[in-house]
């Protein structure tokens, strides 16, 4: 590989490498699919693929929000704790409202509360980063600790459980299907399509990219830098709220360990997808591929006993590095 940098390469080979760089996440995804087929005959069953897609949609929706934050050269480490906190408050709201309202409006208000809490938490992060001029890493590390402690406190160290009367109402949000497609997958797909259009076709996406590549130049170009950066954090919060709507009906409970390390999974998915960690280049469809890569890896590991479960982490780590290696820039 290092030879290729020094010696002239055939134009066809260079073209292939550029293509590989652009389609890297998809190549890695295809590679994994082949590996999955070899590992287990159950891998390709519709049921298995739907399972993986459905449970990937929670991290997926969060990672789409993270794509905008990172493209604008920001960072949000608080998303996992935010998801737990939002889910906890939403369950408490639903349980409280169920005493005075019928189940359906109580559930709807509780879910609306999740979106509001997510947006609010995102706005706090955004304000501290943009107006307070504190490093995003530190702000969101701080809010991560605060929200994680708050959810532990609210749960008294145990779990916050949804009243059984309310479970039937919310259940379709995770387990329901529309035309055979699970609801979470549908939501994930809609969010991804909307985000892809916003990133590549709308002014908002171009502004986010411009700020990420050079904030000063963006400011001289009359881009409302602060407002846009703020918006990326609020958008991240709304995405977390949306993911919560799917998460809560799944098991109907939140524990202090809910959402642990989701931030790393989301950031990893974004980077695997080809978004630059240093900002200025964002790819929403890449993030979707990245999330699916992470979901498939753990699925394949569960479907086979070829790898000792003690080595699962090593396998996952290797896949992440390979996926990014496939699309590295030359030079």
């Amino acid at each position: 590989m290092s030879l290729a940098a020094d010696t002239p390469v055939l134009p066809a080979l260079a073209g292939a490498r550029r293509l590989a760089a652009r389609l890297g996440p998809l190549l890695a995804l295809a590679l994994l699919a082949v590996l999955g087929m070899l590992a287990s005959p159950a891998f390709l069953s519709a049921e298995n693929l739907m399972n993986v897609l459905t449970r990937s949609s929670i991290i997926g929706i969060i990672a789409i929000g993270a794509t905008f934050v990172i493209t604008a050269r920001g960072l949000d480490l608080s998303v996992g704790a935010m998801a737990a906190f939002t889910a906890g408050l939403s369950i408490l709201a639903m349980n409280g409202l169920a005493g005075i309202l019928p189940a359906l409006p109580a559930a709807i208000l509780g879910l609306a509360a999740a979106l509001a809490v997510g947006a609010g938490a995102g706005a706090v992060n955004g304000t501290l980063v943009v107006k307070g001029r504190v490093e995003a890493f530190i702000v969101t590390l701080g809010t991560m600790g605060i929200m994680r402690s708050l959810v532990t406190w609210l749960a008294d160290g145990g779990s916050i459980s949804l009243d059984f009367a309310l479970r039937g109402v919310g259940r379709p949000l995770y387990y329901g299907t529309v035309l055979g497609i699970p609801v979470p997958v549908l939501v994930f797909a809609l969010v991804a399509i909307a985000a892809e259009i916003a990133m590549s076709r709308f002014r908002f996406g171009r502004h986010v990219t411009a700020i990420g590549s050079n904030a000063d130049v963006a400011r001289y170009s009359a881009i409302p830098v602060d407002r846009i950066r703020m918006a990326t954090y609020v958008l991240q919060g709304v995405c977390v709220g949306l993911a919560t709507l799917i998460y809560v009906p799944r098991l109907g409970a939140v524990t202090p360990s809910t959402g642990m390390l989701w931030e790393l999974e989301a950031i990893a998915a974004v980077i695997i997808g080809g978004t630059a960690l240093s900002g200025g280049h964002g790819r929403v469809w890449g993030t979707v591929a990245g999330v699916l890569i992470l979901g498939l890896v753990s699925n394949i590991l569960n479907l086979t006993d070829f790898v000792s479960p003690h080595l699962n982490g090593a396998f996952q780590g290797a896949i992440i590095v390979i996926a990014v290696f496939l699309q590295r820039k030359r030079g």
Partner: protein
Amino acid sequence: MTITRRSLLAAAAGTGLAAATGPVRAQDADDKARIGIAIPAATHGWTGGLNYHTERTIAAMEAAFPQLEFLLTTAGDVQSQVNNIEDLSARGIDALVILPMESDPLTEPVKFAKSKGTFITAVDRGLSEEGVEDLYVGGNNPQYAVVAAEYFKGKLPQGGKIAVMRGIPTAIDNIRIEAFQKTLEGSGIEILDMQYANWNPDKGFEVMQDYLTRFPQIDGVWAGDDDAALGAKAAIEQAGRQGEMKLLGGSGMNRVIKMVMDGDPLIDADIFYPPTLIVPAIQVTAMRYATQAPVKGRYVLDSPLITAENAAEYYFPDSPY
């Protein structure tokens, strides 16, 4: 949620403010017996219950015996637990009740505390050297797994196929899994696979979904813990296969015990391995100072099988776990 003394204490412990209240207390505490407590922070359901029962017991003991003072610390990892023990030691304690997060790294710090004359009570896990602890109160981890294995032998007298979920990779998990496999030897019961579900409901859900995809025949599932079992239950019900298998968790979470009481078709039993074992540990230690009771020795609590018949005895509806 009301801000009770207990929840305030929990918040203080959670944010590390507990340490700040120490020096104030110390001034008027010269004639009091001081008992330091070092337990893991509430990182999963079981430790959440542990914190709840610790605070409940401290409140009851302080009310009953004003001559006792308790200093509670919680730690999220081994190193902070070592720091907590050093801090407690520096503040001067007569007794230390410790639930070690890991036995090996905590043996030296506890030995050091003992060298200053502190009475040592080890809970749940012993220390790596003989004779460090004066009092040991623990559950019975091999028995926990033997009870689980006997349960499946009873359900599957002709043999069958079961899927197993391991916990967080720790010594406890290894002890349980070893005893489980050993008890099943020769029973005709085949273990399909054992993946780590980290005693966590979300992980339990995902691992179970993949087991269901992979194995057309599963006669039983041992999730190892009630949190993981609740996740597995949701996955089994989603696949509509609750008719063909039995699911067993373990440790006695109140939601699961309620299911057993109510005759849940999938989960009809649980194994007692309760976070309440901290209750006798604190109480017996306190009695040494409150009533001069000679208490040294080993107290091992049983891990019986909980079924619909005896479930009410193990049910704590107000506990968070």
